[in-house]
């Protein structure tokens, strides 16, 4: 028997219910003298420490044994004294968990029975059965395999090579904070090669959830842009000169379509993405763009002057009726454009000091190749963080118009 002072025995024990809010169970727990708190399984997977140290964690059997075993291990590591499963409809799932050695409670939820079961789960304390351990190990191995595959698959969503129109350089890189990234970049030809489309995007959040949205958003944007004919004239761009209006149709269509799709189908999940989407006319240097709530890219003039391109609309997926204006800018010979995600300016050193916009602007040297431009920022970020763990995905893209002059 665990040594238990009398005062501990009498205080209200906290029970963490992991699953959907279950009124009948919660009411019975209160009646049995417990203090129940409900939590979402995803939240616990993200941050098991945030739930405090519950006396007993009750996991919904319908989560399935692999997830129950993994959550159970995370919660025990975070200090939960006892773990049990509760029946929430799926008898088969409950039986699987019980066979693996989990304590359980099942309806009708009588306060007396609940109390006895939970005290026994609590007293069993940190002892885990062999079945629980095996299930947790197997489940972790499976997740690791899945993550590895997801990483490989996601690499396939980034372009193998970026188009390089004559007289221009385009370079980009993406450094994920975890195995799977919520950032991405893209570069592709539009309108039979007469326009260059490029995208830098940051799906809020990181890891596998952001990665799934990254794949969706990238596909929607590119598919819509590539399948909009040049004859489609951009709304809201009647004052555009014909050369710019030519590329604006696919741009506007892609942004509006993607926002509409996300808002109609995924708004409830609270996911959104900040996106910078540019369409360049390589012959004139004219660039039309839509900045969907993204960190303002920097135009770096050949003489060292800089301007930024602030948002022209909200982040994608945030507002169903979001309005998107077209922005435009001309890149002259020797000018560059630098597009980045917030992982650059928010890169923090061990003390938590962030790199910041000022330092980033200082790291942008004019009149360098697109690749050198990115290297310069990369080096400065690395020096700043000085080995501290990377907390967010970092993506950069450089577009440079080669200086006019004798061809080499």
């Amino acid at each position: 028997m665990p040594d238990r002072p009398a005062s501990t025995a009498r205080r209200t024990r906290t029970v963490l219910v992991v699953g959907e809010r279950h009124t009948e169970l919660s009411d019975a727990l209160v009646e049995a003298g417990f203090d129940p708190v409900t939590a979402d399984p995803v939240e616990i997977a993200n941050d098991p420490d945030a739930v405090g140290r519950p006396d007993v964690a009750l996991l919904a059997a319908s989560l399935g044994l692999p997830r129950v075993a993994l959550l159970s291990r995370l919660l025990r590591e975070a200090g939960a004294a006892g773990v049990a499963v509760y029946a929430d409809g799926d008898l088969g799932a409950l039986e699987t968990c019980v066979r693996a050695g989990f304590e359980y409670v099942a309806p009708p939820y009588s306060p007396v029975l609940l109390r006895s079961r939970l005290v026994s789960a609590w007293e069993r304390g940190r002892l885990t059965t062999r079945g629980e351990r095996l299930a947790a190990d197997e489940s972790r191995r499976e997740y690791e395999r899945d993550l590895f595959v997801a990483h490989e698959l996601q690499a396939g969503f980034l372009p193998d090579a970026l188009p390089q129109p004559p007289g221009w350089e385009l370079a980009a890189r993406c450094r994920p904070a975890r195995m799977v990234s919520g950032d991405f970049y893209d570069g592709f030809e539009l309108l039979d090669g007469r326009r260059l489309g490029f995208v830098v995007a940051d799906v809020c959040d990181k890891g596998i959830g952001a990665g799934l949205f990254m794949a969706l958003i990238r596909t929607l944007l590119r598919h819509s842009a590539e399948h909009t004919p040049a004859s489609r004239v951009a709304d809201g761009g009647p004052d555009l000169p014909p050369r710019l209006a030519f590329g604006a149709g696919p741009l506007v269509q892609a942004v509006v379509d993607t926002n509409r799709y996300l808002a109609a189908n995924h708004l409830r999940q609270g996911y959104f993405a900040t996106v910078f989407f540019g369409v360049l006319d390589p012959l004139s240097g004219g660039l039309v763009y839509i900045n969907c709530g993204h960190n303002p890219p920097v135009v770096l003039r050949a003489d060292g002057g800089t301007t930024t391109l602030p948002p022209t609309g909200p982040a994608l997926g945030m507002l169903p009726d979001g309005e998107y204006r077209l922005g435009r800018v001309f890149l002259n010979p020797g000018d560059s454009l630098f597009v980045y995600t917030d992982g650059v300016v928010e890169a923090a050193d061990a003390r938590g000091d962030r790199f910041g916009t000022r330092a980033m602007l200082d790291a942008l040297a004019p009149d360098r190749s697109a690749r050198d431009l990115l290297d310069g920022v990369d080096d400065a970020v690395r020096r700043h963080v000085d080995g501290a763990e990377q907390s967010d995905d970092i993506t950069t893209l450089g577009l440079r118009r080669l200086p006019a002059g004798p061809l080499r």
Partner: protein
Amino acid sequence: MSFAAKSHVWDGTATIRLTGELAAKSAGQFNRVIADVSAQDPHRLVLLLDELTYLSSAGLRSLVYAHQRLGRGVEIVLVGAQPEVAETIRLTGFDRSVVMQEPTGA
């Protein structure tokens, strides 16, 4: 660095004071507070942000999530956001879904 969210609901208005950094690590904690608060069907949510020192994109996601969870009829008021936090909210256009106010009184 650490994050705290203290809430109370009175007369249909839920007030939550956020302290520290709202980022990926603390988003779950905030989401739980929102879940508790939304169970009481408030018609107005006031977030006191003057002590919120940092809002990451994952943190902003939890604000967007709160907005979705509470429903369209619930007004969200953000009070006293520090300049950098306000910038993050404006940059992404989320300011169009909420009311942003300077601190009052204090």
